[in-house]
């Protein structure tokens, strides 16, 4: 019951979105409807002309009387062709335009949804919104103009038939409600299965996606068979849902042929008798059979439209839900201008829990003077990256506040804030683009010279020049054609290419060898000079560079001070860094 109701609600939301979309493209839609109406008028005219010809034949007229009618028919045919062309072209145009525009909207929206949303939403799910759900929606939009013309046609044809002969007309018109009723029943039977089918298709897509992105693990454990079994399993469930639908189709589809045929039989029996009785002419009788014939396809299409409407509406409502999801990180209503400053960052009694409830930071107080550098040290999972991610507002604090040069980060325009805070992530994600484009992500305006000097600083310049295509070398997805250390250095270059007040380096040299690391450290000195820098690192040599170290345990800042002081005063600090470990190894 509850499920039915929620489906009904979905349907309403979905249809309202479809309606809004159709309205947005009303110009093109109108052209298509005009085309459909022209087509419809001709579809109605032609059988009438056929009937006239037959009557002329029965009335033993001359061929010279018949030719003009036939000529008229050909003209009607030409006009009909124009109508069809308009109907189809603009119908397509509206639906594809709407699809493309909505896909852009979805993409843009996804780009703005916060980390917290992406943490819990799988890539596959978002992909489904922007692909299969959208095409479902497009199908129904493409059919909308012709369906509306069809509905008009049914009424007009019914009236024409009734005018020709009320008894026969009414009987023949019964076909319309009978077919529409059948297709509605069919639709309601099929909805459940099509929901299932959609669901299972997306599960399958999930298996594929995961296998492709985790292929290295799959292969190294030789788990191809396991993945294959999972996929086969999903394919089998898709089979079940599809066959469930097929069964309903087998039951209902034949009615779509049988019902018009029954109409023809009724016309034959009833109409034949009335011709014999002289109530109608033979030509009118033939018109009837022709009308029935031309109405079949429109009726089927209309049936199809209503059969698919629930499925498309469901897809539309899912799209609507995504577009209506407000980003967790919201622009302030009245953004405050960032004050001039050197990038002082202050955590004031900050607590933070991820949306799933685990509290990760507890009452963190941390003051990083403008232009100074701080190292974050702590055990795995103690909350270092989390602290770093709060500064550019990837997440909002649960309580307390963070200020940049005296302004709460929540009061700054996001663009202002993020263009002053540069992050080198722990995971070196690169786009499948050229190395240069990847670095340029950090600052699209950067001159070539700046790009190169950033690369030099990150010790990436040398190996980049070693490639045949140099900076134009295109890397694989996620940077897969580079070695781990190369990837990390490109990502570092991307982070330092701009000139931010605050630079955050999250374990940014974990994959490079000691010599390169030492060189990078040397270069970093110059970047760090006068710039607020937050460095997450475990290497003593790096920590020796920073002014202060914040030592974090289980989401608490337990000590703060210069590295060498903490080494002496905080035994746990020395233990986490394992400074004495080599000796007893």
């Amino acid at each position, binding site marked *: 019951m509850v499920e039915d109701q929620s489906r009904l609600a979905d349907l309403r939301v979905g249809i309202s979105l479809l309606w809004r979309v159709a309205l947005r493209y009303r110009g093109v839609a109108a052209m298509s409807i005009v085309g459909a109406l022209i087509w419809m008028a001709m579809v109605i005219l032609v059988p009438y002309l056929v009937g006239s010809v037959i009557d002329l034949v029965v009335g033993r007229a001359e061929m010279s009387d018949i030719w003009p009618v036939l000529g008229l028919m050909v003209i009607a045919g030409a006009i009909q062709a124009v109508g069809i062309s308009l109907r189809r072209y603009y119908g397509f145009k509206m639906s594809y335009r709407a699809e493309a525009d909505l896909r852009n909207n979805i993409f843009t929206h996804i780009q703005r949804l916060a980390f917290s949303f992406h943490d819990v939403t799988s890539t596959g799910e978002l992909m489904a919104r922007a692909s299969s759900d959208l095409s479902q929606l497009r199908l129904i939009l493409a059919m909308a103009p012709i369906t509306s013309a069809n509905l008009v046609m049914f009424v007009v044809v019914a009236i024409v038939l009734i005018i020709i002969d009320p008894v026969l007309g009414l009987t023949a018109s019964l076909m319309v409600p009978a077919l529409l009723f059948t297709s509605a029943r069919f639709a309601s039977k099929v909805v459940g299965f099509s929901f299932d089918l959609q669901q299972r298709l997306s599960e399958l897509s999930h298996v594929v996606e995961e296998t492709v992105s985790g292929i290295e693990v799959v292969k190294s454990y030789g788990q191809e068979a396991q993945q294959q079994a999972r996929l086969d399993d999903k394919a089998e469930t898709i089979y079940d849902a599809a066959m469930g639908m097929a069964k309903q189709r087998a039951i209902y589809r034949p009615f779509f042929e049988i019902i018009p045929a029954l109409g023809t039989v009724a016309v034959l029996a009833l109409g034949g008798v009335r011709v014999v009785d002289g109530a109608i002419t033979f030509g009118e009788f033939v018109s009837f059979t022709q009308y029935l*014939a031309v109405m079949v396809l429109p009726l089927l299409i209309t049936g199809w439209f209503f059969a698919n409407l629930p499925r498309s509406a469901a897809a539309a409502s899912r799209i609507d839900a995504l577009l209506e999801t407000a980003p967790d990180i919201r622009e302030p209503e009245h953004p405050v201008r960032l004050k001039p400053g050197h990038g002082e960052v202050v955590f004031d009694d900050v607590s933070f829990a991820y949306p799933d409830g685990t509290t990760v930071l507890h009452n963190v107080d941390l003051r990083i003077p403008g232009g100074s550098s701080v190292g974050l040290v702590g055990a795995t999972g103690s909350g270092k990256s989390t602290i770093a991610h709060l500064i550019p507002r990837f997440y909002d604090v649960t309580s307390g506040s963070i200020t940049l040069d005296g302004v709460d980060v929540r009061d700054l325009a996001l663009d202002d804030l993020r263009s002053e805070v540069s992050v080198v992530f722990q995971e070196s994600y690169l786009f499948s683009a050229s190395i240069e484009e990847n670095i340029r992500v950090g600052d699209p305006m950067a001159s070539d010279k700046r790009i190169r000097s950033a690369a030099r600083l990150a010790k990436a310049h040398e190996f980049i020049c070693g490639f045949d295509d140099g900076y134009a070398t295109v890397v694989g997805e996620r940077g897969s054609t580079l070695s781990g250390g190369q990837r990390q250095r490109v990502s570092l270059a991307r982070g330092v290419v701009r000139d931010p007040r605050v630079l955050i380096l999250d374990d940014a040299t974990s994959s490079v060898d000691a010599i390169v690391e030492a060189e990078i450290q040397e270069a970093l000195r110059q970047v760090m000079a006068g710039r607020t820098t937050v460095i997450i690192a475990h290497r003593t040599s790096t920590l020796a560079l920073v002014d202060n170290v914040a030592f974090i345990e289980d989401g608490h800042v337990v000590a703060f001070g210069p590295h060498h002081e903490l080494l002496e005063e905080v035994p746990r600090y020395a233990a986490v860094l394992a400074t004495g470990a080599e000796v007893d190894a």
Partner: protein
Amino acid sequence: MKYMGSAGDYRVDRPGRLVTRAARLAPDLKWQFIGAIAVASVATLVRLVGPLIIRGGIDDGITEGDKRTIIVAAAIYVGLLVVQYFASAAAQWSVAIVGERYLVRLRSVVFGRLLRLDMGFYSRSKSGVLVSRMTSDIESLQEFASDGAVLALTNLLTVVGVAFALVLVDWQMAFTVFAVVFVLAGVTVLFQRQARRAYDQVREQIGSVLATLQEGITGVRVVQAFTQEDAQASTFGRVNERYFEANMAAARAISWYFPVVAFLRIIALAAALGIGASRVLNGTMTIGTLVAFLLYLDWFFQPIINLSNVYNLLQSALAAIAKLFELMDEKVVVDDKQGAFDLSEPVSGSVALETVSFSYEPNTMVLDAVSVIVGAGERVAIVGETGSGKSTIAKLIMRFYDPESGVVAIDGNDLRDITERSRTGALALIPQDGFLFAGTLRDNIAYADPGAPDEAVWNVLRAMGIDHWVRSLPEGLDTEVRERGGRFSAGERQLVALARAFLSDPSIIVLDEATSNLDPETEIQVEGALRVLLAGRTSVVIAHRLRSAERADRVIMVDGGRIIAEGTHSELVESSPRYKELVEVWQRGAK
């Protein structure tokens, strides 16, 4: 950049080849397929009798003024319709069975092929494109199977049947109609040529839309961090627009073709009426025959229009299957060869690379005649600058790639002679960024052995000293790790990847900077565990933190794809200035 091999012979403009090859995928469905066609033919035949009955009703009933005959004809027709109902239902059902079964097969076969392709293929391809092969391409086949196939089949049969019927009713008029059909055929050829190109483009573009979309989603954190949302959106907008254009090209083709077909239908109708009328007037044809002919005519053009309507389904299906064959034609480079054998148990675990050379791309040698021998149970560390080829050695040991020249061997057997099952059972690689699958922590740790009892999982966790961490998670082993393990910190992900490897109990373990994100204390703790867990196993450790090199039995130093020094840590400190320098820099950093 080229994502996949060339289309080869299976292009959309060779539908015949596509179909025969498609059929070869499921020879066992042949009889079911023939059965389905038979049932559909019966249904169509039954349908075709209808107008003949109407002719009888008109000529013997209406024209003669005999009401009884009219009623009898109607009754016969109704009886026929009952038969037609069941025949059509059976046709729908049997075609669906064949179609859907075929799809199950196709999904399985394509995926199976995908799984066999080597890592080189994967790093060349965009994952979005690969996923779209298995989803949107096969889904367009599904659409065809569930909607199009029955329509196509019955309409095709109807056209053929009606053509016969027309000739039977009146051959002279029939040939007039066929003249129109001849024109139609010419027009159709033109249309098909245009539409094929268009649909091919559509398939091509949907792939890049999906790939761009996927990258926009997976890279969203970087995009936001660098406020590139607008730039990203405009890139996507461009790709999306190209897809729109491709679709519109197809739409344009459809928008001229169908009107022409409809017009030709009216021409045929007018021609038939004209000829029929004059024949009825001069007494060489009955009026019933004319009406029946007109009915058949509708049944002739309607299916042609229907066919053109399913044509885009068919065309998408063909384009999709061509893309799938392209994928299936990718050469399987790394594969079990004929006569591959299992390693003899117990695997002692020696690893040897003999003058191995390798390059990812032509002309850029990554490994140059590298020879390494790791004895059973030995622990060897590989050190060297970033990009020197260390991970590549690891990948060759895993047989992610085959060497260009030289041999990689386990227990003296060339990897290429060993079955995959046996190889992967003996080896485990722990890469730097421990990939986790969406699912529970348990699923991930027990990945290699899904049936492993919790007891075994806990044993490993305890040995690694991270059992308390797992216990502290709200749902313990049942914690959802989310896509790529997003629920965890980088270090935690590495710990899980390590646990996964140990549970699989390999004889040879390759650690590729597997602890690089751990804090030193945890790292040492894990190292301690490693010593216990690695006892009796062969291990190859790649690490920039030289602590592992110090503890290794032997150290190999790689530079620019060659081995430049080899020996124990203390030997190398003595003999290799490069190594000595590395150690000194590292020690300065760590103390």
